């Protein structure tokens, strides 16, 4: 397939997708199919879906073969007598009313049974993670540990966690097809989602409710890891970063305070405390930028700081009109925040 046929964007913003790294990245990516279930919740849904598909296939084949048979068998033939005028047969018609109703009843029973497994009602919510959706990124708060992060959700494997889903602005929807049902994120409202990831790995999801300009690039990356790794990650996220090391990082830290960065972002241990945009305290430890819009490395972060609109057109971070070296200094500073 020809690559970048319609590419009109300057500065090769998507270069990472067109080089060899692309194939490699594709290999590491989890298939986001709903059938590739990696939690008991998603497995229960997939089972119900298979059941539904089987029923649908039987009904479809019945209807289709009746139609095909009628089309072949009852085609007009020369010299044919006028067909018998059959006004209907209530008994037969009752049959094809009752039989589908009974089939649907079995599906309804399966539905009720699966609902209980997938997302039972939450009586006394004590969420493990609070997911707060923003235009167009995700904020994750872990109330027990106090960790605050963005776009990449870390979860310990094989633990049943409760996610509380809410929104800071418009309606969004939290959807990770491999792991769980989708749940709307609604402003001034709390929804809940149980999920028990059954294996380690990276699972991709996305916002599923149309939420404005950059609905498409509002990715979710769930990183499921062993309890030890998860504990280590939690500890690292709680660490307050030290002084910037090296002249570039020092200049970057200064620029971060002088420019308008801190109007929207927070970095622990500094003056920057705003929660409008993603918390950047440990931004260097994340795998992607802009809610999955690009991979996170020094080059991409520099490009992002220089002109986020080129990578994620329409996002809320403006182009700050920085020079190349200023953008790089800030990027060096931020990349060191692991």
């Amino acid at each position: 397939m020809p690559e970048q046929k319609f590419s009109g964007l300057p500065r090769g913003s998507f270069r990472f997708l067109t080089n060899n790294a692309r194939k490699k990245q594709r290999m590491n990516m989890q298939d986001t199919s709903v059938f590739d279930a990696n939690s008991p919740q998603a497995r229960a849904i997939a089972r119900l879906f298979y059941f539904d598909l089987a029923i649908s296939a039987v009904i479809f084949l019945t209807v289709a073969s009746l139609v095909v048979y009628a089309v072949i068998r009852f085609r007009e033939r020369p010299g044919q007598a006028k067909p018998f005028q059959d006004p209907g047969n209530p008994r037969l018609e009752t049959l094809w009313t009752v039989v589908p109703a009974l089939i649907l009843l079995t599906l309804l029973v399966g539905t009720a049974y699966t609902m209980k497994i997938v997302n039972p009602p939450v009586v006394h919510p004590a969420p493990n993670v609070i997911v707060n959706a923003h235009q167009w990124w995700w904020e994750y708060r872990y109330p027990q540990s106090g960790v605050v992060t963005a776009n990449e959700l870390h979860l310990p494997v094989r633990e049943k966690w409760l996610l509380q889903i809410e929104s800071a602005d418009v309606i969004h929807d939290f959807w990770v097809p491999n792991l769980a049902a989708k749940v709307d994120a609604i402003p001034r409202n709390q929804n809940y989602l149980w999920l028990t990831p059954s294996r380690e790995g990276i699972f991709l999801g996305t916002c599923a409710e149309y939420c404005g300009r950059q609905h498409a690039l509002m990715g979710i990356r769930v990183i499921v890891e062993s309890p030890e790794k998860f504990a280590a990650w939690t500890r690292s996220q709680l660490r307050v970063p030290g002084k910037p090391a090296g002249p570039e990082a020092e200049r970057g830290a200064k620029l971060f305070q002088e420019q308008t960065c801190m109007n929207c972002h927070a970095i622990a241990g500094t003056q920057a405390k705003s929660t409008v945009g993603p918390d950047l305290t440990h931004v260097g430890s994340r795998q992607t930028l802009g809610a999955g819009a690009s991979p996170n490395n020094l080059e991409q972060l520099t490009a992002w700081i220089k002109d986020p609109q080129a990578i994620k057109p329409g996002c809320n971070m403006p182009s700050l009109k920085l020079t190349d070296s200023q953008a790089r200094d800030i990027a060096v500073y931020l990349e060191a925040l692991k």
Partner: protein
Amino acid sequence: MSEESPAQRPISSLADMKEYRGIFSWIASVDHKQIGIMYIVSAFVFFIVGVGLAIAMRIQLMEPHAHFMSPETYNQLFTMHGTTMVFLMAMPLLFGVSVYFVPLMIGARDMAFPRLNALGFWLYFFGALMIYFSFMAGGAPNAGWFSYAPLTEKAYSSHPGLDYWALSLLVMGAGSVATGINLIVTVLTMRTSGMTLTRAPLFVWMTFFNSFLVILALPALNAALVMILADRQLNAHFFSPAHGGSALLWQNYFWLFGHPEVYILILPAFGVISEVIPVFSRKMIYGYDFLAASTVAIVFLSYAVWMHHMFATGLSYLVLYVFAGSSMLIAVPTGIKIFNWIATMWGGSIRFTTAMLFATAFLIQFTIGGLSGVAFAAIPIDWQLTDSYFVVAHIHYVLLGGTLFAMFAGIYYWFPKVTGRLLSEKIGRLNFWLMVIGFNGTFFGMHWLGAAGMPRRAYTFLDRPPLTTLHLVSSLFSFVLAFAILVFIWNVVRSLRNGAVAGNNPWDAWTLEWTTTSPPPVENFEATPPARGWRPFWDFRKKEETDHD
């Protein structure tokens, strides 16, 4: 109509109608046939526009990370595509066919309120122009055809596109209610002698009940539109959670309208199928009572299923159970119809005209659309698939593979009556096969796309094997579908210019519209035969075979 005098040629095409000459005869018309034609032609023009928008979107989605258009443009396109196809194409097309044929099928001279009929059309026409004017007034609406709050609040969408959207839908909604009332009164009061309600053709039945859906569902939308306009223009807070409003209130209002709307779009199509299949199978409709009664069931149930659009919003278990049950229940009366239509074909003597081909494809494709709909009633499946491409596949199987295929059957069936000329059957078959291939090729893979994790309404997507391939295949087939529409236009133009003269009753059909000339005179009938059964014209011609009770 064969009395030929040297001064008066027999009327065999619209151009022969001296009452229809000049643009003023159309603008000032209160003739239900002219209004019907204006509805259908306008709907078709907007259909072409809607297809154009769709093709632009399919080009953008041909490959991951394409930059054929900006996200903002894409968002305007899908909003306008949905709005156009539902409100500017499908509804007026159905209204057009209804106001044209309901009076003819019941042996009436015109609608009960001819001027109200004209008002309904012009409200639609100018409402439609107004929403397209928004492109020149700062940008088209960009919040999707159901425009969920609070994205539609001024805080998140400040340009005037959404104001145009709300105003224009309000204007068209008022016109729709007027036309709905008009159709109900017409069916109740204007039937020819002997045509009791239980002898009315099924198309009339479906339209009649559909009109109740229209007049009871549209007010919910109109009310919500007034509220969102108040929010945007007067700083009211109906849907603004930050000020104590409710985001979900909009969804409840919209789907209280929106789900009956789906049936508003499909019931007249059921009516068309119920006319076309019997005529071309040479058999009376099988189980008239079941078909009519199941329509009534659909009308009632359609008001009790709207929350299945909201299963992911965090409803209580009780609400979820009730709406899962009702949503599955509504599949039953719909299934009855499919089996009754097949039973009508059974034992018949089927002539595969283009109209019948479209009706047959409808049976298969609408069944797929119905079955994918049942998946959404099974709540946990809905939790995975709602707002994904599976929904896009589902609505297109219902509204394109269902409604539009049925309307094409109707157009090929009734075109000779309206224009006096037959459409070419040869081009018609080409049109049909291209459309079947284009439609299924474009949309069948979207079921898989949705299950593979592709959310709807995204202007681009990540490069992952199934997504990239499936999007490309869908885009390529969409060009076939667009080409099929061009073939249809070619057929229409060709037929209007020098199509074969149709005569009064080219299909040997049996409802009253076929007793008069093609096109019908302004007064419709010189005399109507009394209806003694379901097929008045059949009874009239073949007294010994009458099927009246």
